């Protein structure tokens, strides 16, 4: 068993690697442009190029993949020649700083032709000083310097070129100078070092948003799961006990009726009837910064929609499985042996009839986490599925990758759980 689990974990890592590559390539190949999505439709080509460069999107795809997976700070540190440090401020902003020779965090900015160092004091305030000694002459006859700017990039600044820029300098006003940033390398730690990066769409660390969305989805999926699955299994077993009975007909036709109506239709009908006509519960979820469990009344309709959709599906599979078991020779034998009816059902029939539904249920955990996007959109529920949909439409690669990784973990994890449950239900199954 231990060996089996280890093998599964290795498989998990491999799947994650392959999926992450696939997502990267698919996103790359799909149409759309992050710069236009973020800056609006009216940017000029130069503005677009500058924006893409600041996000590091001008680099080749393999290089971006490596940066996403392993980070870019080691590379930047080599260019700058100083150690880099990622820290989170009191207000929750992520900031990158270089650690200078005397161990103090430092960043730079260009003011006219002067390089200004910002030294971070222990209390979070900064002290500025001119730091022109760091310029190095470059082959084109100008001066250049690799450093960290205040927007979490490693930047190569250049001066003495023919580029002219206007900058505002405190105290002396507007001044024309010849320098400017030439090359950007956005700083990140990389996915395997626990930093899924910053969302291109929202500009927030993916981890922060994903945590909230994952939590919300877990709450919705969890409640739906806890209600649907026992109910569906119980009703399915009940229907399958006696094939063709009235009970069986009512349950399977009823279940089918709800599972064939698409969830957006069910959702809209429920909103119209329960929320608009009867005004019993809210028809949309408005959480703001609150957690879903603080507004349980808003969860009622989404959970009800999911229940109606899922119930019929699992119910019918359980029923089919139960019908088959009830027809099998060993049940007949048990009858003939004179065992009590309920003992036959609970001890012999149910256990075997559960094998098929368990597989389906476990596959559905995955669907409940990411695939209920339609229900989320209908109710405005801030869940993982909607987050991934928005990210995909925006070509927001960091968010998409992190979400995909979570879904891979859920998929492989639930399969592992299903396999373990099999061994409990059916002792003949052994894994090595």
């Amino acid at each position, binding site marked *: 068993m231990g060996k089996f689990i280890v093998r599964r974990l290795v498989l998990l890592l491999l799947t994650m690697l392959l999926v992450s590559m696939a997502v990267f390539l698919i996103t790359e190949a799909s149409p759309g442009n992050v710069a236009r999505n*973020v800056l609006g439709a009216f940017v000029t080509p130069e503005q677009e190029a*500058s924006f893409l460069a600041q996000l590091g999107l001008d680099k080749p795809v393999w290089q971006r993949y490596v940066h996403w997976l392993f980070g870019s700070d080691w590379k930047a540190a080599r260019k700058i020649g100083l150690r880099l440090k990622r820290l989170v401020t009191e207000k929750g902003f992520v900031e990158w700083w270089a650690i200078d020779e005397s161990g103090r965090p430092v960043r730079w900015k260009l003011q006219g032709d002067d390089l200004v160092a910002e030294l971070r004091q222990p209390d979070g305030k900064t002290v500025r000083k001119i730091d022109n000694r760091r310029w190095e002459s470059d082959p084109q006859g100008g001066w250049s310097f690799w450093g960290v700017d*205040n927007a979490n990039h490693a930047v190569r600044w250049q001066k003495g070129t023919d580029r002219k820029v*206007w900058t505002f300098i*405190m105290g002396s006003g507007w001044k024309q100078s010849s320098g400017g940033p030439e090359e950007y390398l956005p700083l990140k730690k990389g996915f395997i070092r626990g930093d899924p990066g910053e969302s291109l769409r*929202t500009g927030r660390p993916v981890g922060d948003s994903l945590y909230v969305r994952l939590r919300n989805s877990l709450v919705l999926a969890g409640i739906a799961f806890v209600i649907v699955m026992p109910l569906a299994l119980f009703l399915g077993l009940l229907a399958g006990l006696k094939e063709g009975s009235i009970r069986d007909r009512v349950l399977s036709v009823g279940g089918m009726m709800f599972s064939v109506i698409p969830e957006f239709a069910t959702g809209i009908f429920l909103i119209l009837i329960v929320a608009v006509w009867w005004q019993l519960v809210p028809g*949309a979820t*408005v959480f703001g*910064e609150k957690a879903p469990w603080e507004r349980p009344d808003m969860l009622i309709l989404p959970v009800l929609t999911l229940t109606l959709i899922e119930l019929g599906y699992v119910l019918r599979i359980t029923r089919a499985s139960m019908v088959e078991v009830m027809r099998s020779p060993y049940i007949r034998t048990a009858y003939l042996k004179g065992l009590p009816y309920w003992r036959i059902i609970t001890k012999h029939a149910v256990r075997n009839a559960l094998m098929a539904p368990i597989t389906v249920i476990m596959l559905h955990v995955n669907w409940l986490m990411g695939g209920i996007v339609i229900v989320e959109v209908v109710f405005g529920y801030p869940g993982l599925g909607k987050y991934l949909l928005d990210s995909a439409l925006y070509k927001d690669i960091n968010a998409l990758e992190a979400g995909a990784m979570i879904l891979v973990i859920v998929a492989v994890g639930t399969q592992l759980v299903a396999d373990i449950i099999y061994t409990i239900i059916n002792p003949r199954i052994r894994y090595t």
Partner: protein
Amino acid sequence: MDSTDQFHPAVSDLKRQLQNGEISRRDFMRYATLLGVSTLAAGQMIGLLLPRKTLAADIRRGGTLKVSQQVQKIDHPARFSWLMPSNSMRMVFEYMTLTGPDNITRPYLCESWSASDDLKTWTFNVRRGVAFNNGDTLTADDCIFTINQWLNKDVKSSLLGLVGSYLDPGGIEKVDDYRFKLHLKRAEIAIPEHFFQYTAQVLSHRTFEGDMKKRPHGTGPFVLDTYNEGEICIVKARSNYWQKGFDGKPLPYIDEIRFIDMGGELAPQIAALKSGEIDLIDASDNPGPQIMKAVNRDAHVQVMPVATATTRVMRMRVDMKPWDDNRVRMALKLCQNREKILALAYQGEGIRGQDFHVYPKHPEYCSKPFPRYQPQRARKLLAEAGYPNGIEVNLAVGSEWTDIVRYAEVLKQDAAPAGIRVNIQTMPTSQYWEKWTEVDLGVTPWTHRPLGTMVPNLAYIADADGKPVPWNETRWVDPEFSDLLATASGTLDINARRNIFCELEEIQMTRGPIGIAYWMNTWMCSNKRLQNVAAHPNLVFLFNEAWLKS
């Protein structure tokens, strides 16, 4: 004594025109205020008493306003992608001027301004006694810093195209702490209106470093409390705002505004508005009749309409076949059955258009007959142009603009009798914006702008080198049109301007690159407890004096 002596010389002309009945009071107000006369003074000149907006006794302080809005990524206001993020941030940051729901531009952080006779030198006076929420005092440096941010190429602001076309950083002159001058490259009348563009929020020159979230130091009535992209933005009232309320205490009346991200789907937002979970939907990025139609019979919701110059422009690339031939362009324009399009595409909630980019509420608008639907004439024109068997054309439309899709479907039907076979190519809206200037035939949304000269200067002229300007999606450059437009942009006399516009409109109607079938109305729909607000043509939020009924 003439009280207009101290004002721009054109003001007395305006006054004379008003007295002779040549212009309306509204036009007088608009132009006089543009030239630096305060609204109050302009109102006094024409004997207009500004009505008190509300009875002070009703006003209640306190309460939390809940708005459904997509909480987008923001860092630099000059880089806002569209109106929506400006609406939450305009609670914290303010503008130098304010263009009200009536299209009149009023002084705001700049308390007055004046223009030289040739409209090339503008002097702005910065309001005294305005403090940022970090305690710093607003001075001319902050305004100059902000304008320079727009003109800085690395900031990537859309204002660079607008303001940069007539102003260089070197043309900004600081006179003293509360006064600055702009020396323009050419005459421009719309500067005060440009200062109210959604991207023009005034920043602190002392503390702004590229990210407004990190140091949200603005002069507005609220301070930024929380900004979680994709979730929620909370702003809270500050205690020392520069404007005073009816009771002599500083505004705002509302304690707190929460912008809650419910995603882009309208259905859940409408459901939440009806059930009172939210008070208002921010529809500024996607105005349309859907929300109004869903809530206009609801007892808790008030619907405030406004007619706008927002429109859908059917544009043809004149540098590409077959649109390089004006007869072909004319043929397609003749296929627009305007009443039908307005009724089916926009549910009749607008004004018919006339194939030139000026709408009836623009002051310059010169009345013209509405072109009729004439498929037979269109067929004849096509034959003359060498297409006796008709033509097949691809029409690019963004699928999320549902009214445009319906517009395209009506056009397809009505163009068939003329021999124009239209293939509708739908694509995601984001993809349309990818190539909106590149497609040969498409329908592009253009937003409301308060003056008739503003859009033509953005879309139908060439730059100094003779290249079409960046937003000239049709590449149509007509020397006569450009010259007349330049004259119009420097002409203050409204009748003279309108006379020029009669010619401009005629040129665009007879040989222009666009068809405009309708101008769209828009609505602000809010819970009835939100008081003292009006719908703005751009659906921007002006909530300084808004209050909440208990």
